[in-house]
């Protein structure tokens, strides 16, 4: 018997569409009843079947609810709207048949009422099956509400102007508290998803005490040691980090204002450090590339040249001649087919000369070049100015000329150039402004002897 009921219950989603069709058809006829003569009889026929089908869908809905273990709270609205639709369809049918009670209620009540109740029932039904933001979700992306709160949300230049609640406290609470304290699931009858809800407090009273902030319940709850039962967030959930605890503590002690800005409340950078959006400068350019040419990779590898992606499943490549020191200028041609893919190249200790700069300039996405201990002098290095991603260049222990330093100082994207020459002091040969000099590392660090070096205790 059980199975039959479940089986019949399963027809609910199918049967529900019948009343929708009949009622809408009926309402359509209603609108055109003047133009189409036989409207009245057809309407009666339609609404007869509309009420039969809506009765059937209610019954099947009940069975589905009983058998499939839905929670009453979720389906309550949908059920009531469904019954209302049935009553209205039956009423309108009786109205059309001329039943005396039904006539008492104006026709418009039936038609308009039917339309509204149908829409509500349909919408709620949709929510149950496909989740409650089913309808609004595509719109949300449009409007920019992004409920997945970004871990880091302040940026360093305008954080002080941010409003404290919306800019700082709300993102923290939504990440760590709202999960169990929201309209749908309010543990301890406490909701924390809005400032007002915070003020209201929960079952055992307020959590923000404005006249004596330090005794606010929210503070004791977050500062209790973890094994205490009352400690919040509960042990099994994700814990507040130390920085988050300090922020909440600081905010509550300042009277837990809503609209004051971070600057007014005196928040400093150190406190907000772990909420700052680092300008996570992507080390390598994020561009889509197709698979590098397999044959070239095989042949280079068989020569002993090391080629690996910068990380798994990435097409950006790192190349090194560490295991093939005999690499020379004319081998550079072999890399031609990979000129977009190679982002970091290490030709240290190889036999390349200044001719290397011409071919390197063709590697458009190059970020780091290493030419330590090679015979280059910097002749033709200006061609590298074409590379708009070049961030680091290593020219240690080479025959680098001081003019090359001036050329390199002109590279816009460059962050650091390592030009330490252990047998000569390149630094003394050039004069550059301090802020340019900071982009070079001339090395030659020395450790003078200290008296304590020789003392034996």
């Amino acid at each position, binding site marked *: 018997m059980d199975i039959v009921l479940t089986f019949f219950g399963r027809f609910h989603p199918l049967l529900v569409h019948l009343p929708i069709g009949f009622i809408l058809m009926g309402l359509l006829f209603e609108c055109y009843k003047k133009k189409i003569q036989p409207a009245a009889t057809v309407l009666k026929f339609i609404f007869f079947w509309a009420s039969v089908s809506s009765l059937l869908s209610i019954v099947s809905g009940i069975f589905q609810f009983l058998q499939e273990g839905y929670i009453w709270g979720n389906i309550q609205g949908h059920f009531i709207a469904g019954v209302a639709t049935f009553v209205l369809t039956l009423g309108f049918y009786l109205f059309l048949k001329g039943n005396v009670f039904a006539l008492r209620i104006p026709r418009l009540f039936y038609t308009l009422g039917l339309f509204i109740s149908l829409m509500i029932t349909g919408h709620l039904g949709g929510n149950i099956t496909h989740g409650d933001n089913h309808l609004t979700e595509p719109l949300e992306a449009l409007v920019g509400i992004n409920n997945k709160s970004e871990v880091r949300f302040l940026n360093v230049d305008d954080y002080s102007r941010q409003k404290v609640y919306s800019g700082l406290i709300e993102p923290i609470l939504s990440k760590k508290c709202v999960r169990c304290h929201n309209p749908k699931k309010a543990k301890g009858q406490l909701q924390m998803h809005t400032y007002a809800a915070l003020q209201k407090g929960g079952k055992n009273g307020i959590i923000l005490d404005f006249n004596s902030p330090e005794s606010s319940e929210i503070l004791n709850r977050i500062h209790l040691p973890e094994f205490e039962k009352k400690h919040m967030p509960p042990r099994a959930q994700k814990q507040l980090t130390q920085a988050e605890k300090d922020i909440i503590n600081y905010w509550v002690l300042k009277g837990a204002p809503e609209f004051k800005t971070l600057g007014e409340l005196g928040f400093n950078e150190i406190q907000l450090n772990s909420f700052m959006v680092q300008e996570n400068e992507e080390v390598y350019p994020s561009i889509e590339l197709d698979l590098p040419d397999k044959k070239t990779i095989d042949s280079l*590898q068989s020569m002993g040249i090391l080629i690996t992606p910068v990380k798994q499943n990435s097409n950006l490549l790192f190349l090194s001649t560490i295991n093939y020191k005999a690499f020379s200028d004319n081998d550079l041609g072999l890399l031609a087919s990979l000129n977009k893919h190679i982002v970091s190249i290490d030709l240290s200790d190889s036999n390349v000369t200044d001719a290397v700069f011409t071919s390197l300039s063709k590697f458009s996405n190059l970020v780091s070049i290493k030419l330590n201990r090679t015979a280059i002098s910097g002749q033709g290095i200006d061609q590298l100015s074409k590379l708009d991603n070049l961030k680091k260049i290593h020219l240690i222990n080479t025959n680098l000329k001081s003019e090359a330093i001036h050329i390199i100082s002109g590279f816009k994207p460059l962050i650091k150039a390592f030009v330490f020459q252990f047998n000569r002091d390149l630094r003394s040969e050039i004069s550059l402004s301090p802020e340019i000099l900071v982009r070079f590392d001339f*090395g030659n660090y020395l450790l003078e002897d200290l008296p304590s070096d020789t003392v034996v205790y």
Partner: protein
Amino acid sequence: MNDIEKKLLNEYVLNQASINSRRHFLKDCTLGLGGIAFGSLLKSCAPSGSPNLFGGERTLNPLAPLSPPKLPKVKNVIYLHMVGAPSQLEMFDYKPELHKLHDQLCPESLLKGKKFAFIQGVPKMLGPQAKFTQAGASGNWISDNLPHFKKVIDDVAFLKAVNTDQFNHGPAQLLMHTGSARFGRPSLGSWATYGLGSENQNLPGFVVLTSGGTPDAGKSVWGSGFLPSVYQGIQCRSKGDPVLYIKDPKGVSRNLKRELLSSINEINYQEFKAQEDPEILTRINQYEMAYRMQITVPEVMDIENEPESVQKMYGVTPGKESFANNCLLARKMVSSGVRFVQLYDWGWDSHGDSPANAVDLGLRNKCKEIDRPITALLLDLKQRGLLDETLVVWGAEFGRTPMQENREGRDMGYKGRDHHGDAFTMWMAGGGIKKGVVHGQTDDIGYTAVEGKVSVHDINATILHLLGFDHEEFTYDFQGRPFRLTDVEGNIIREILS
């Protein structure tokens, strides 16, 4: 063929072709898959998820370089471990409060329920035996036992509240380096070379350099545990052969050795053509690598081929075994592409039972031994453009107590401190590390951690993160379950990451 076999064989083929089940792959691959000879089926026998182009290489050589799942911040690691546990109260953790309590009896509250390695009864408090000053732009505290270190203090991020639950040397060292106080687990260096291989194909991937003695837990702190033994640490020794049997026998010249190797590989290759066993190809490759290592290892281990100024900067003494020599060697190894260099310096166990073990005498000499070399190492790495792709970690297996040790109820001859794992200091420098930051704080006498407590697993999780791994995903199947270096704990210490 019944269902099990069909399932088994097709699961095996799938494993080889795509799914990243390392156990099948590595154990069987080192056993027998030559790759080249048998076309694409074996070529794509790759460790990473999708059949990528670079996996094939690993079948010939288990140390072939691989890329990590996430973008790495560093390529190499230099780990400096002070065996015996230096006293953080005389080096980095400045505790003025402790001065005031000097020579007073230790309050009962500190001893309740606490078990010490040696302290019994009620010990006396021991004030810091060194003066402290603030240094660098960051203004972090440093003791005058480490004068040179002041120059590089701004490049370093301190962890002032590290804790461990072991208080004996052997188990504590095992926990720090293998993630478990029991024997049998792979060390951090083995995990790194297992995951990333090594760039320089003519040098070992994981090198160990010791000075003053080997750590208490013996070779297991750099063992490969249940991973294949090719990933264990290779101990390079500055006395005798740097790597065992690296030198040619007396009277055999280089080109005679070349002749010998060519004949061996020639005959092996004929054998391979007759028998088509891929393992023979792997052996041919290993013999070629051995020949190359015979040149590259002694070269990289030779301090004297470094210029005079660099030798003076580190304060090296060629031909002898010293921490300074090992620091210079560490830089040379990292710049030649060795993945993981592990240094152990023995002699920090200052219990106060002899002048050499006194916190006001022996400890000062030990600090002097490491102060110049470590400062030189950081400066040298920086000037060679290596510091921002190398991670330097300084640490020990635990710290020492603020109380003076009174072993077996009677005072020791000299001032010493007992083992204490609740509040010691470590620091990190290099790629991905925020400069000059101090994370974690101990109470005013340096007895317990009050804020920013960091566990051994957190440190290993952070190191793996910088190498480009998610420490919860980086596993190896053994005894039916996936094992991790950080076992079931470990959170990345984000506060010190740049």
